[in-house]
């Protein structure tokens, strides 16, 4: 939308200004004084000026140059969630996915190994996989017929006599992502090889992912129930983890739930006794690395009987409960049933585990985002329990759901509002005075506090302005 060139001269920015000291920017959609790309030489760290302890500059959501840097440094420079291994349970099964701008194939080879391959023929660059999902032994480029095994190896080219003796098929395999690692079936990939092991990247968030996995008997998830694909005209970072909004954004849903608070089987049934209230014991939590959580654990443990009651009147529910207690310590099984398989976790930058779904966030442009929702079923639970999970999901999420549609509408209002950038600062200070650090190092606040927003912004800045950003700019 904004294609203005970067300013050729950079204003002074030696000291922090109070927001009101700053002049109104001449081009309100651009960061007025701070953004330069690597290579232009930089004194200090311009991006750091856009992220303050309790506020951030709206350019983070509206500036095209910053968006391009995000693609490069966050989406092409770090771990991304790609998919779940159950989606490609059998050899040859594949799914097309995006890593920022880059199309990739998540595929299980004939050798059983899960790979993430760049979806680009090594000859002239056409995509070799054109279906969203499928199963095949080979990927064939239909431009000139180069054919790859589902392990990525080039197995034949047409007219091989046209290539010299030095041409080796083995040097033209589909390019793999630099790193591919799994956490209990969750497949992550990075196009940058210099990233820590995924388990270190996840840190304290891993144990929260377990809240979903362990809620499945045998720990076996099935992510083969299709997806809801939604889009909104707003920046990708708007899909945050926010516990302050429900009473306003979802006021109409809360009214609906109140109609049958005791009898309902929808999502409302696990949300009794307003978990978002100002007197709620629910919390927000920042695990570091931008991973954040709306932490309902204390609240739901108080109301564990509700979900248990729903399970007990659902076919297969008693067996489900028995299975969890047989597999886990009683305390953890209590927690799993109380949480109903809902971690409410955001793994920076593109994964969320919310209610019964895995959610992938794909940035399309600075002001457009795609959100793909994959409901998760439990492989060893009854048809009725899984149908209940799907119905709960649809009631709130997806393009006709009662919740995510109102979220998207508000995101669009934010995106439009941020264009009014005479006073460009976005306030994310709520709860700064009362947040505290837990024994595991995570930062904790009240459910309505902006602990997650601050945590995500800390990681954003760490990835966007690495300590060696200035020297990186040299090449």
């Amino acid at each position: 939308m904004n294609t203005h060139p970067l300013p050729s001269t950079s204003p002074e920015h030696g000291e922090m200004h109070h927001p009101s000291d700053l002049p109104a920017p001449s081009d309100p959609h651009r960061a007025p004084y701070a953004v330069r790309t690597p290579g232009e030489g930089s004194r200090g760290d311009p991006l750091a000026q856009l992220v303050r302890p309790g506020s951030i500059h709206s350019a983070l959501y509206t500036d095209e140059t910053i968006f391009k840097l995000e693609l490069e440094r966050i989406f092409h420079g770090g771990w991304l969630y790609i998919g779940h291994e159950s989606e490609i349970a059998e050899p040859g099964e594949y799914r097309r996915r995006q890593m920022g701008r880059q199309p990739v194939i998540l595929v299980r080879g004939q050798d059983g190994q899960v790979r993430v391959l760049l979806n680009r023929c090594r000859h002239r660059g056409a995509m070799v996989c054109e279906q969203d999902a499928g199963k095949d032994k080979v990927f064939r480029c239909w431009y000139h017929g180069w054919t790859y095994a589902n392990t990525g190896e080039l197995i034949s080219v047409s007219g091989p006599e046209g290539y010299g003796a030095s041409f080796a098929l083995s040097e033209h395999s589909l390019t793999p992502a630099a790193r591919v690692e799994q956490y209990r079936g969750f497949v992550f990939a990075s196009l940058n090889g210099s990233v820590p092991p995924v388990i270190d990247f996840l840190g304290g968030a891993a144990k929260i992912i377990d809240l979903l996995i362990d809620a499945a008997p045998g720990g076996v998830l099935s992510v083969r129930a299709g997806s809801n694909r939604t889009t909104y005209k707003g920046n990708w970072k708007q899909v945050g983890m926010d516990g302050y909004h429900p009473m306003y954004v979802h006021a109409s849903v809360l009214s609906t739930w109140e109609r049958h608070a005791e009898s309902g089987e929808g999502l409302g049934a696990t949300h009794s006794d307003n978990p978002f209230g100002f007197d709620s014991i629910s919390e927000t939590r920042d695990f570091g690395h931008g991973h954040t959580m709306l932490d309902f654990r204390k609240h739901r443990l108080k109301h564990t009987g509700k979900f248990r009651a729903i399970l007990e009147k659902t076919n297969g529910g008693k067996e489900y409960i028995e299975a969890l207690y047989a597999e886990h310590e009683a305390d953890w099984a209590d927690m799993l049933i109380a949480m109903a398989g809902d971690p409410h976790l955001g793994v920076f930058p593109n994964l969320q585990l919310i209610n019964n779904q895995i959610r992938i966030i794909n940035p399309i442009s600075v002001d457009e985002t795609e959100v793909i929702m994959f409901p998760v079923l439990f492989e060893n639970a009854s048809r009725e329990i899984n149908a209940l999970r799907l119905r709960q999901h649809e009631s709130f999420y997806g393009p006709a759901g009662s919740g995510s549609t109102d979220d998207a509408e508000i995101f669009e209002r934010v995106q439009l509002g941020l264009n009014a950038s005479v006073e460009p600062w976005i306030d994310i200070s709520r709860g700064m005075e009362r947040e505290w650090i837990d024994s595991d190092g995570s930062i904790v606040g009240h459910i309505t506090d902006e602990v997650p927003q601050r945590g995500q912004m800390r990681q954003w800045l760490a990835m966007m302005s690495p300590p060696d950003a200035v020297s990186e700019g040299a090449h």
Partner: protein
Amino acid sequence: MADKPNGSAIAAFTGSPTAVAVTHTSALYADVAAFIFREAELMDGHCYDEWFDLWAPEALYWVPSNSEDLDPDKSVSIIYERYDQLADRIFRLKDKRIHSQNPKSRLLRIVSNIIAEADGEDVLVRSNFILGEVRSGHQEALFGRATYRLFRREGGWKIRAKKVYLLNNDAPMRNVTFLL
């Protein structure tokens, strides 16, 4: 698949072996078509209560995702609701705080290609539609196929089941919280 797919979802939109086509020149066809056009008008006009009145208590309202005929117990839908959930949807549509419909979508749909089949006391109806939507200065065009199971009661038609197949149901989609 080893186990049986969701029976009610399949049966609702499948004619029995004795079902017979309704000829286009018959009074029954004209009657059914008039009902379908009337329903379209209610949906375009956001006449929530009047539209909900068209439904029978055994209501099944289904908007599949990703395909037209996946087993709804194993695959996610966009909407899969019975009467009570549909009542909740109507309740919320009338709440002023439904932000995704504030302002409301302006809607206009063209319904065509109506095919009917008499199935005992029910009539199975299939129709195609083009639905134009304008909201906040932006126009969308949705294409789809609606399949109904209707029956006559108190002189009018009631909907036992309705399935709405959106042509773009596997593509990134903006909100479709208005009546489909």
